[in-house]
Protein backbone atom coordinates (compact mmCIF):
# COMPACT_ATOMS: atom_id res chain seq x y z
CA UNK A 1 0.00 0.00 0.00
CA UNK A 2 2.82 2.39 0.91
CA UNK A 3 4.59 1.44 -2.30
CA UNK A 4 1.54 2.45 -4.35
CA UNK A 5 1.27 5.75 -2.50
CA UNK A 6 4.97 6.55 -2.98
CA UNK A 7 4.88 5.46 -6.63
CA UNK A 8 1.98 7.82 -7.25
CA UNK A 9 3.70 10.64 -5.38
CA UNK A 10 6.95 10.25 -7.26
CA UNK A 11 5.57 9.78 -10.75
CA UNK A 12 2.03 11.06 -11.03
CA UNK A 13 1.06 13.61 -8.40
CA UNK A 14 1.03 17.06 -9.94
CA UNK A 15 1.88 16.20 -13.56
CA UNK A 16 -1.16 18.15 -14.74
CA UNK A 17 -0.22 21.22 -12.74
CA UNK A 18 3.46 21.67 -13.59
CA UNK A 19 4.71 23.37 -16.73
CA UNK A 20 6.91 20.55 -18.01
CA UNK A 21 4.53 17.76 -17.03
CA UNK A 22 6.67 16.64 -14.12
CA UNK A 23 5.30 15.37 -10.84
CA UNK A 24 5.68 17.63 -7.81
CA UNK A 25 8.45 15.28 -6.60
CA UNK A 26 10.39 15.58 -9.85
CA UNK A 27 9.89 19.34 -9.87
CA UNK A 28 11.35 19.55 -6.36
CA UNK A 29 14.32 17.38 -7.31
CA UNK A 30 15.08 19.50 -10.36
CA UNK A 31 14.41 22.86 -8.72
CA UNK A 32 17.21 25.39 -8.85
CA UNK A 33 17.09 26.84 -5.37
CA UNK A 34 14.82 24.78 -3.17
CA UNK A 35 16.59 21.44 -3.49
CA UNK A 36 20.07 22.74 -2.70
CA UNK A 37 18.83 24.85 0.19
CA UNK A 38 16.84 21.96 1.65
CA UNK A 39 19.74 19.52 1.43
CA UNK A 40 22.21 22.04 2.81
CA UNK A 41 19.88 23.00 5.66
CA UNK A 42 19.32 19.32 6.48
CA UNK A 43 23.07 18.74 6.69
CA UNK A 44 23.90 21.89 8.65
CA UNK A 45 21.15 21.26 11.17
CA UNK A 46 22.36 17.67 11.49
CA UNK A 47 25.74 19.15 12.41
CA UNK A 48 24.12 21.18 15.18
CA UNK A 49 21.99 18.24 16.26
CA UNK A 50 24.76 15.65 16.41
CA UNK A 51 27.31 18.05 17.86
CA UNK A 52 25.04 19.08 20.71
CA UNK A 53 23.65 15.64 21.54
CA UNK A 54 27.22 14.31 21.51
CA UNK A 55 28.21 16.81 24.20
CA UNK A 56 25.26 15.79 26.40
CA UNK A 57 26.11 12.10 25.89
CA UNK A 58 29.76 12.76 26.72
CA UNK A 59 28.63 14.36 29.98
CA UNK A 60 26.52 11.30 30.72
CA UNK A 61 29.56 9.13 30.04
CA UNK A 62 31.55 11.22 32.50
CA UNK A 63 34.20 12.34 30.01
CA UNK A 64 33.22 16.01 29.46
CA UNK A 65 31.85 18.77 31.72
CA UNK A 66 32.47 16.44 34.69
CA UNK A 67 32.44 19.33 37.15
CA UNK A 68 29.03 20.56 36.02
CA UNK A 69 25.74 18.87 36.98
CA UNK A 70 24.14 16.89 34.15
CA UNK A 71 21.01 19.05 34.42
CA UNK A 72 22.95 22.28 33.82
CA UNK A 73 24.45 20.89 30.61
CA UNK A 74 21.38 19.10 29.31
CA UNK A 75 18.85 21.86 30.10
CA UNK A 76 20.77 24.40 28.06
CA UNK A 77 22.13 22.26 25.26
CA UNK A 78 19.04 20.15 24.64
CA UNK A 79 17.09 23.23 23.55
CA UNK A 80 19.47 23.50 20.60
CA UNK A 81 19.28 19.74 20.03
CA UNK A 82 15.47 19.74 19.92
CA UNK A 83 15.33 22.78 17.65
CA UNK A 84 17.81 21.27 15.19
CA UNK A 85 16.05 17.90 15.37
CA UNK A 86 12.75 19.49 14.36
CA UNK A 87 14.40 21.20 11.36
CA UNK A 88 16.22 17.97 10.42
CA UNK A 89 12.93 16.02 10.54
CA UNK A 90 10.99 18.59 8.50
CA UNK A 91 13.69 18.94 5.83
CA UNK A 92 14.18 15.16 5.87
CA UNK A 93 10.50 14.53 5.12
CA UNK A 94 10.58 17.07 2.27
CA UNK A 95 13.77 15.51 0.88
CA UNK A 96 12.11 12.07 1.03
CA UNK A 97 9.24 13.52 -1.02
CA UNK A 98 11.65 14.18 -3.91
CA UNK A 99 12.09 10.42 -4.60
CA UNK A 100 9.68 8.60 -2.29
CA UNK A 101 9.43 5.36 -4.24
CA UNK A 102 13.18 5.03 -4.74
CA UNK A 103 13.96 5.80 -1.13
CA UNK A 104 11.27 3.42 0.10
CA UNK A 105 12.97 0.56 -1.77
CA UNK A 106 16.46 1.53 -0.60
CA UNK A 107 18.03 -0.75 2.02
CA UNK A 108 20.00 2.11 3.61
CA UNK A 109 16.86 4.20 3.97
CA UNK A 110 15.03 1.30 5.62
CA UNK A 111 17.97 0.64 7.93
CA UNK A 112 18.05 4.32 8.77
CA UNK A 113 14.37 4.22 9.77
CA UNK A 114 15.03 1.25 12.06
CA UNK A 115 18.03 2.99 13.64
CA UNK A 116 16.02 6.18 14.06
CA UNK A 117 13.42 4.14 15.93
CA UNK A 118 16.18 2.69 18.15
CA UNK A 119 17.50 6.19 18.88
CA UNK A 120 14.04 7.55 19.67
CA UNK A 121 13.16 4.56 21.90
CA UNK A 122 16.47 5.14 23.71
CA UNK A 123 15.49 8.77 24.34
CA UNK A 124 12.09 7.66 25.67
CA UNK A 125 13.65 5.01 27.92
CA UNK A 126 16.16 7.56 29.20
CA UNK A 127 13.43 10.04 30.11
CA UNK A 128 11.06 7.47 31.61
CA UNK A 129 13.47 5.19 33.48
CA UNK A 130 17.01 6.54 33.70
CA UNK A 131 16.11 10.14 34.55
CA UNK A 132 13.67 9.14 37.31
CA UNK A 133 16.28 9.43 40.04
CA UNK A 134 18.54 11.96 38.31
CA UNK A 135 18.64 14.15 41.43
CA UNK A 136 20.71 11.41 43.12
CA UNK A 137 23.47 11.38 40.49
CA UNK A 138 23.04 14.79 38.83
CA UNK A 139 26.32 16.15 40.18
CA UNK A 140 28.30 12.90 40.06
CA UNK A 141 31.33 13.14 37.74
CA UNK A 142 30.49 9.66 36.49
CA UNK A 143 26.74 8.96 36.22
CA UNK A 144 25.41 5.42 36.90
CA UNK A 145 25.90 2.65 34.38
CA UNK A 146 22.32 2.81 33.04
CA UNK A 147 22.88 6.48 32.07
CA UNK A 148 26.22 5.62 30.47
CA UNK A 149 24.71 2.73 28.52
CA UNK A 150 21.98 5.04 27.29
CA UNK A 151 24.65 7.54 26.17
CA UNK A 152 26.57 4.84 24.30
CA UNK A 153 23.39 3.65 22.55
CA UNK A 154 22.60 7.25 21.68
CA UNK A 155 26.02 7.98 20.14
CA UNK A 156 26.15 4.65 18.29
CA UNK A 157 22.65 4.93 16.88
CA UNK A 158 23.05 8.53 15.71
CA UNK A 159 26.41 7.75 14.09
CA UNK A 160 24.76 4.82 12.32
CA UNK A 161 21.77 6.98 11.28
CA UNK A 162 24.15 9.55 9.77
CA UNK A 163 26.16 6.82 8.03
CA UNK A 164 23.06 5.22 6.52
CA UNK A 165 21.79 8.64 5.48
CA UNK A 166 24.97 9.21 3.49
CA UNK A 167 24.88 5.72 1.94
CA UNK A 168 21.34 6.25 0.60
CA UNK A 169 22.95 8.22 -2.22
CA UNK A 170 24.83 5.12 -3.44
CA UNK A 171 23.05 2.68 -5.73
CA UNK A 172 25.04 -0.45 -4.84
CA UNK A 173 21.89 -2.35 -3.93
CA UNK A 174 19.45 -0.69 -6.30
CA UNK A 175 16.40 -2.81 -7.07
CA UNK A 176 16.63 -4.43 -10.50
CA UNK A 177 20.34 -5.21 -10.07
CA UNK A 178 21.41 -8.79 -9.40
CA UNK A 179 21.84 -9.20 -5.65
CA UNK A 180 21.30 -11.69 -2.82
CA UNK A 181 17.70 -12.68 -2.16
CA UNK A 182 17.78 -11.27 1.37
CA UNK A 183 18.70 -7.81 0.02
CA UNK A 184 15.83 -7.94 -2.49
CA UNK A 185 13.54 -9.04 0.28
CA UNK A 186 14.78 -6.44 2.80
CA UNK A 187 14.14 -3.55 0.45
CA UNK A 188 10.96 -4.95 -1.09
CA UNK A 189 12.29 -5.01 -4.65
CA UNK A 190 9.67 -7.48 -5.84
CA UNK A 191 6.96 -4.84 -5.78
CA UNK A 192 9.18 -1.94 -6.84
CA UNK A 193 9.07 -0.52 -10.38
CA UNK A 194 12.56 -1.88 -11.06
CA UNK A 195 11.77 -5.39 -9.87
CA UNK A 196 13.96 -7.96 -8.11
CA UNK A 197 16.80 -9.93 -9.66
CA UNK A 198 18.21 -12.81 -7.66
CA UNK A 199 22.01 -12.98 -7.81
CA UNK A 200 22.01 -16.78 -7.48
CA UNK A 201 19.66 -17.15 -10.42
CA UNK A 202 21.76 -14.80 -12.52
CA UNK A 203 25.08 -16.45 -11.75
CA UNK A 204 23.59 -19.91 -12.19
CA UNK A 205 24.24 -21.18 -8.68
CA UNK A 206 20.58 -21.56 -7.85
CA UNK A 207 19.28 -25.10 -7.67
CA UNK A 208 18.28 -26.45 -11.04
CA UNK A 209 20.22 -23.85 -13.02
CA UNK A 210 23.41 -25.24 -14.44
CA UNK A 211 25.22 -22.73 -16.58
CA UNK A 212 28.32 -23.53 -18.58
CA UNK A 213 31.47 -21.97 -17.08
CA UNK A 214 31.99 -19.60 -20.02
CA UNK A 215 28.57 -17.98 -19.57
CA UNK A 216 29.12 -14.37 -18.53
CA UNK A 217 27.79 -13.63 -15.05
CA UNK A 218 25.94 -10.56 -16.34
CA UNK A 219 23.78 -12.59 -18.70
CA UNK A 220 20.62 -13.70 -16.96
CA UNK A 221 19.52 -17.24 -17.74
CA UNK A 222 16.13 -17.72 -19.35
CA UNK A 223 14.61 -18.70 -16.00
CA UNK A 224 15.74 -15.53 -14.23
CA UNK A 225 13.30 -12.62 -14.08
CA UNK A 226 14.21 -9.63 -16.20
CA UNK A 227 15.42 -6.51 -14.41
CA UNK A 228 12.41 -4.51 -15.49
CA UNK A 229 9.82 -7.14 -14.68
CA UNK A 230 8.92 -7.41 -11.04
CA UNK A 231 9.44 -10.91 -9.71
CA UNK A 232 6.42 -12.81 -8.57
CA UNK A 233 7.82 -13.90 -5.21
CA UNK A 234 5.84 -12.50 -2.29
CA UNK A 235 7.07 -9.41 -0.56
CA UNK A 236 8.59 -10.21 2.82
CA UNK A 237 7.51 -7.41 5.11
Amino acid at each position, binding site marked *: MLHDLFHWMQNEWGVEHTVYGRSFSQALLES*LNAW*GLLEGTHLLML*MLFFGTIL*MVDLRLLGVAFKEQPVS*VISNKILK*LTVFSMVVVMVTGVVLFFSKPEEYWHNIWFRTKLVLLAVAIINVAVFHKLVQKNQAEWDSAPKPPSKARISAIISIASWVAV*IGCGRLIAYNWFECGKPQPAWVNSAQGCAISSKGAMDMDAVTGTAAGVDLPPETPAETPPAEAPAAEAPATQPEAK
Partner: protein
Amino acid sequence: MFLAQGNFAVDDIIPQIGPWVENIGTTKIATLFQDLFAFIEIFHILGLFMLGGATILVCLRLIGVGLTEVSPSVVEKNTRLWFNIGVIMAIVSGLMIGLSNAQKLYNNSAFLFKMLAMFSGIFFSYFVVNPVARADGKVGPGAKIWLLVALIIWVLGIVVMLTNVGSDVGVFHVIVAGGLVAFAALQGKARWILVAGLVALIVPWQLLTHIWIRTDDANMVPYDTTNKIFMWSTAAWIGAFSVANILGKAAPKDSNATARLIGFAAILVWVTVGAGGRWIGLT
Protein backbone atom coordinates in the same frame (compact mmCIF):
# COMPACT_ATOMS: atom_id res chain seq x y z
CA MET B 1 38.65 39.97 -13.83
CA PHE B 2 38.11 36.77 -11.87
CA LEU B 3 34.69 37.97 -10.75
CA ALA B 4 33.64 38.46 -14.35
CA GLN B 5 34.79 34.95 -15.29
CA GLY B 6 32.53 33.17 -12.80
CA ASN B 7 33.13 29.69 -11.39
CA PHE B 8 36.56 30.75 -10.15
CA ALA B 9 38.43 27.67 -8.92
CA VAL B 10 41.91 26.41 -7.97
CA ASP B 11 42.75 25.79 -11.64
CA ASP B 12 42.50 29.58 -12.19
CA ILE B 13 45.08 30.24 -9.48
CA ILE B 14 47.64 27.52 -10.24
CA PRO B 15 47.02 26.20 -13.76
CA GLN B 16 50.60 24.83 -13.86
CA ILE B 17 49.70 21.85 -11.67
CA GLY B 18 46.89 20.72 -14.00
CA PRO B 19 48.75 17.70 -15.47
CA TRP B 20 49.93 16.64 -12.00
CA VAL B 21 46.38 16.82 -10.63
CA GLU B 22 45.14 14.78 -13.59
CA ASN B 23 47.76 12.15 -12.81
CA ILE B 24 46.84 11.85 -9.12
CA GLY B 25 43.55 10.16 -9.97
CA THR B 26 45.36 7.23 -11.60
CA THR B 27 47.65 6.42 -8.66
CA LYS B 28 47.10 3.28 -6.57
CA ILE B 29 46.36 5.22 -3.40
CA ALA B 30 43.76 7.36 -5.20
CA THR B 31 42.08 4.24 -6.58
CA LEU B 32 41.98 2.74 -3.09
CA PHE B 33 40.36 5.89 -1.71
CA GLN B 34 37.89 5.92 -4.61
CA ASP B 35 36.80 2.41 -3.62
CA LEU B 36 36.39 3.51 0.00
CA PHE B 37 34.92 6.89 -0.90
CA ALA B 38 31.51 6.44 0.74
CA PHE B 39 33.00 5.43 4.08
CA ILE B 40 35.66 8.16 4.01
CA GLU B 41 32.84 10.62 3.36
CA ILE B 42 30.96 9.42 6.45
CA PHE B 43 34.13 9.81 8.52
CA HIS B 44 34.56 13.32 7.09
CA ILE B 45 30.99 14.31 7.90
CA LEU B 46 31.24 12.94 11.45
CA GLY B 47 34.47 14.90 11.98
CA LEU B 48 32.80 18.09 10.77
CA PHE B 49 29.76 17.46 12.96
CA MET B 50 31.96 16.87 16.00
CA LEU B 51 34.03 20.01 15.52
CA GLY B 52 30.89 21.97 14.64
CA GLY B 53 29.08 20.89 17.79
CA ALA B 54 32.09 21.63 19.99
CA THR B 55 32.83 25.06 18.53
CA ILE B 56 29.22 26.24 18.41
CA LEU B 57 28.91 25.80 22.18
CA VAL B 58 32.00 27.92 22.76
CA CYS B 59 30.89 30.54 20.24
CA LEU B 60 27.37 30.75 21.65
CA ARG B 61 28.83 31.14 25.12
CA LEU B 62 30.92 34.07 23.85
CA ILE B 63 27.75 35.59 22.40
CA GLY B 64 26.13 35.16 25.80
CA VAL B 65 23.69 32.32 25.13
CA GLY B 66 23.75 28.56 25.62
CA LEU B 67 25.78 27.34 28.58
CA THR B 68 25.60 30.64 30.45
CA GLU B 69 25.76 28.99 33.88
CA VAL B 70 29.42 28.17 33.31
CA SER B 71 32.20 30.50 32.16
CA PRO B 72 33.47 30.56 28.54
CA SER B 73 36.81 29.12 29.72
CA VAL B 74 35.07 26.08 31.22
CA VAL B 75 33.11 25.48 28.03
CA GLU B 76 36.28 25.77 25.94
CA LYS B 77 38.24 23.44 28.25
CA ASN B 78 35.55 20.74 28.09
CA THR B 79 35.02 20.88 24.35
CA ARG B 80 38.70 21.28 23.31
CA LEU B 81 39.52 17.57 22.98
CA TRP B 82 36.42 16.86 20.87
CA PHE B 83 37.03 19.89 18.70
CA ASN B 84 40.61 18.73 18.07
CA ILE B 85 39.48 15.18 17.26
CA GLY B 86 36.86 16.59 14.86
CA VAL B 87 39.47 18.78 13.12
CA ILE B 88 41.88 15.82 12.73
CA MET B 89 39.10 13.55 11.40
CA ALA B 90 37.93 16.21 8.94
CA ILE B 91 41.42 17.04 7.66
CA VAL B 92 42.67 13.43 7.32
CA SER B 93 39.49 12.28 5.56
CA GLY B 94 39.44 15.51 3.55
CA LEU B 95 42.92 14.73 2.20
CA MET B 96 41.76 11.23 1.24
CA ILE B 97 38.71 12.67 -0.53
CA GLY B 98 40.93 15.21 -2.25
CA LEU B 99 43.26 12.50 -3.53
CA SER B 100 40.44 10.32 -4.80
CA ASN B 101 38.66 13.17 -6.52
CA ALA B 102 41.45 15.61 -7.36
CA GLN B 103 40.43 16.56 -10.89
CA LYS B 104 36.86 17.44 -9.97
CA LEU B 105 37.91 19.50 -6.96
CA TYR B 106 40.65 21.30 -8.90
CA ASN B 107 38.05 22.74 -11.26
CA ASN B 108 35.34 23.26 -8.66
CA SER B 109 34.56 26.72 -7.36
CA ALA B 110 32.75 25.35 -4.31
CA PHE B 111 35.93 23.50 -3.30
CA LEU B 112 37.91 26.73 -3.37
CA PHE B 113 35.46 28.57 -1.15
CA LYS B 114 35.30 25.59 1.20
CA MET B 115 39.09 25.63 1.53
CA LEU B 116 39.19 29.38 2.13
CA ALA B 117 36.45 29.06 4.73
CA MET B 118 38.24 26.12 6.35
CA PHE B 119 41.50 28.02 6.76
CA SER B 120 39.54 30.95 8.10
CA GLY B 121 37.69 28.62 10.51
CA ILE B 122 40.87 27.03 11.80
CA PHE B 123 42.51 30.43 12.35
CA PHE B 124 39.32 31.67 13.97
CA SER B 125 38.99 28.72 16.34
CA TYR B 126 42.61 28.20 17.35
CA PHE B 127 43.88 31.78 17.40
CA VAL B 128 40.77 33.84 18.18
CA VAL B 129 37.79 31.96 19.67
CA ASN B 130 39.70 29.58 21.94
CA PRO B 131 42.14 32.17 23.40
CA VAL B 132 39.31 34.65 23.94
CA ALA B 133 37.17 31.96 25.60
CA ARG B 134 40.11 30.88 27.78
CA ALA B 135 40.43 34.51 28.92
CA ASP B 136 36.68 34.55 29.63
CA GLY B 137 35.89 37.08 26.91
CA LYS B 138 38.97 39.32 27.09
CA VAL B 139 40.30 39.99 23.59
CA GLY B 140 44.08 40.34 23.44
CA PRO B 141 46.05 42.05 20.64
CA GLY B 142 47.08 38.72 19.07
CA ALA B 143 43.45 37.63 18.83
CA LYS B 144 42.54 40.94 17.19
CA ILE B 145 45.19 40.50 14.48
CA TRP B 146 44.12 36.91 13.79
CA LEU B 147 40.48 38.04 13.77
CA LEU B 148 41.30 40.42 10.96
CA VAL B 149 43.27 37.78 9.02
CA ALA B 150 40.51 35.18 9.43
CA LEU B 151 37.79 37.65 8.43
CA ILE B 152 39.68 38.66 5.27
CA ILE B 153 40.11 35.01 4.22
CA TRP B 154 36.46 34.27 4.93
CA VAL B 155 35.25 37.28 2.92
CA LEU B 156 37.46 36.08 0.04
CA GLY B 157 35.71 32.71 0.26
CA ILE B 158 32.29 34.36 0.17
CA VAL B 159 33.35 36.40 -2.88
CA VAL B 160 34.39 33.19 -4.67
CA MET B 161 31.06 31.60 -3.73
CA LEU B 162 29.18 34.57 -5.13
CA THR B 163 30.97 34.30 -8.49
CA ASN B 164 29.61 30.79 -9.02
CA VAL B 165 26.24 30.87 -10.73
CA GLY B 166 24.35 28.02 -9.13
CA SER B 167 26.21 27.71 -5.87
CA ASP B 168 25.93 31.42 -5.11
CA VAL B 169 22.62 30.48 -3.55
CA GLY B 170 24.69 28.56 -0.98
CA VAL B 171 25.52 31.94 0.58
CA PHE B 172 21.94 31.79 1.84
CA HIS B 173 23.01 29.10 4.31
CA VAL B 174 25.47 31.54 5.80
CA ILE B 175 22.89 34.33 5.81
CA VAL B 176 20.16 32.17 7.36
CA ALA B 177 22.66 30.84 9.93
CA GLY B 178 23.32 34.49 10.80
CA GLY B 179 19.57 34.89 11.22
CA LEU B 180 19.35 31.84 13.49
CA VAL B 181 22.23 32.97 15.69
CA ALA B 182 20.70 36.45 15.90
CA PHE B 183 17.38 34.80 16.78
CA ALA B 184 19.05 32.87 19.61
CA ALA B 185 20.90 35.94 20.87
CA LEU B 186 18.16 38.56 20.57
CA GLN B 187 15.64 38.88 23.35
CA GLY B 188 11.93 39.69 23.57
CA LYS B 189 9.97 41.16 20.69
CA ALA B 190 13.07 41.84 18.57
CA ARG B 191 13.54 38.17 17.67
CA TRP B 192 10.00 37.85 16.29
CA ILE B 193 10.41 41.01 14.22
CA LEU B 194 13.54 39.38 12.81
CA VAL B 195 11.59 36.22 11.88
CA ALA B 196 8.75 38.21 10.30
CA GLY B 197 11.27 40.05 8.11
CA LEU B 198 12.93 36.79 7.09
CA VAL B 199 9.64 35.17 6.12
CA ALA B 200 8.66 38.29 4.15
CA LEU B 201 11.91 38.00 2.16
CA ILE B 202 12.33 34.24 1.72
CA VAL B 203 8.78 33.36 0.67
CA PRO B 204 8.57 35.82 -2.28
CA TRP B 205 12.13 34.87 -3.31
CA GLN B 206 11.24 31.17 -3.54
CA LEU B 207 7.96 31.95 -5.33
CA LEU B 208 9.74 34.18 -7.84
CA THR B 209 12.53 31.74 -8.64
CA HIS B 210 10.31 28.66 -8.81
CA ILE B 211 7.02 29.84 -10.26
CA TRP B 212 7.44 33.14 -12.00
CA ILE B 213 10.95 33.10 -13.45
CA ARG B 214 11.47 30.39 -16.05
CA THR B 215 15.12 29.60 -16.64
CA ASP B 216 17.09 27.54 -19.06
CA ASP B 217 20.81 26.94 -19.33
CA ALA B 218 21.12 29.62 -22.02
CA ASN B 219 19.73 32.39 -19.87
CA MET B 220 20.40 32.20 -16.15
CA VAL B 221 20.47 35.99 -15.76
CA PRO B 222 16.94 36.61 -14.42
CA TYR B 223 17.29 33.75 -11.95
CA ASP B 224 20.73 34.81 -10.83
CA THR B 225 19.78 38.49 -10.54
CA THR B 226 16.73 37.64 -8.42
CA ASN B 227 18.88 35.43 -6.18
CA LYS B 228 21.37 38.21 -5.66
CA ILE B 229 18.73 40.88 -4.94
CA PHE B 230 17.11 38.72 -2.27
CA MET B 231 20.47 37.58 -0.95
CA TRP B 232 21.64 41.11 -0.25
CA SER B 233 18.25 42.21 1.09
CA THR B 234 18.13 39.28 3.51
CA ALA B 235 21.76 39.80 4.55
CA ALA B 236 21.08 43.49 5.18
CA TRP B 237 17.98 42.70 7.23
CA ILE B 238 19.75 40.11 9.39
CA GLY B 239 22.86 42.27 9.57
CA ALA B 240 20.88 45.17 11.00
CA PHE B 241 19.56 42.95 13.78
CA SER B 242 22.90 41.28 14.37
CA VAL B 243 24.60 44.65 14.71
CA ALA B 244 21.91 45.69 17.17
CA ASN B 245 22.75 42.55 19.11
CA ILE B 246 26.51 42.91 18.91
CA LEU B 247 26.42 46.57 19.92
CA GLY B 248 24.30 45.67 22.88
CA LYS B 249 20.88 47.05 22.15
CA ALA B 250 19.05 43.79 22.70
CA ALA B 251 22.02 41.67 23.71
CA PRO B 252 22.59 39.39 26.68
CA LYS B 253 24.33 41.26 29.52
CA ASP B 254 26.89 38.54 30.25
CA SER B 255 29.42 39.24 27.47
CA ASN B 256 31.30 42.04 25.73
CA ALA B 257 30.70 43.36 22.20
CA THR B 258 33.98 42.15 20.64
CA ALA B 259 33.61 38.65 22.10
CA ARG B 260 30.05 38.56 20.74
CA LEU B 261 31.28 39.59 17.29
CA ILE B 262 33.94 36.85 17.40
CA GLY B 263 31.45 34.17 18.44
CA PHE B 264 28.96 35.29 15.81
CA ALA B 265 31.49 35.42 12.97
CA ALA B 266 33.12 32.09 13.89
CA ILE B 267 29.78 30.27 13.67
CA LEU B 268 29.16 31.75 10.22
CA VAL B 269 32.65 30.73 9.08
CA TRP B 270 32.08 27.09 10.06
CA VAL B 271 28.64 27.18 8.44
CA THR B 272 30.40 28.35 5.26
CA VAL B 273 32.70 25.31 5.48
CA GLY B 274 29.71 22.96 5.80
CA ALA B 275 27.74 24.71 3.04
CA GLY B 276 30.82 24.65 0.80
CA GLY B 277 31.15 20.90 1.26
CA ARG B 278 27.56 20.32 0.27
CA TRP B 279 27.76 22.58 -2.77
CA ILE B 280 30.80 20.70 -4.07
CA GLY B 281 28.44 17.80 -4.58
CA LEU B 282 25.72 19.92 -6.11
CA THR B 283 27.79 21.87 -8.63
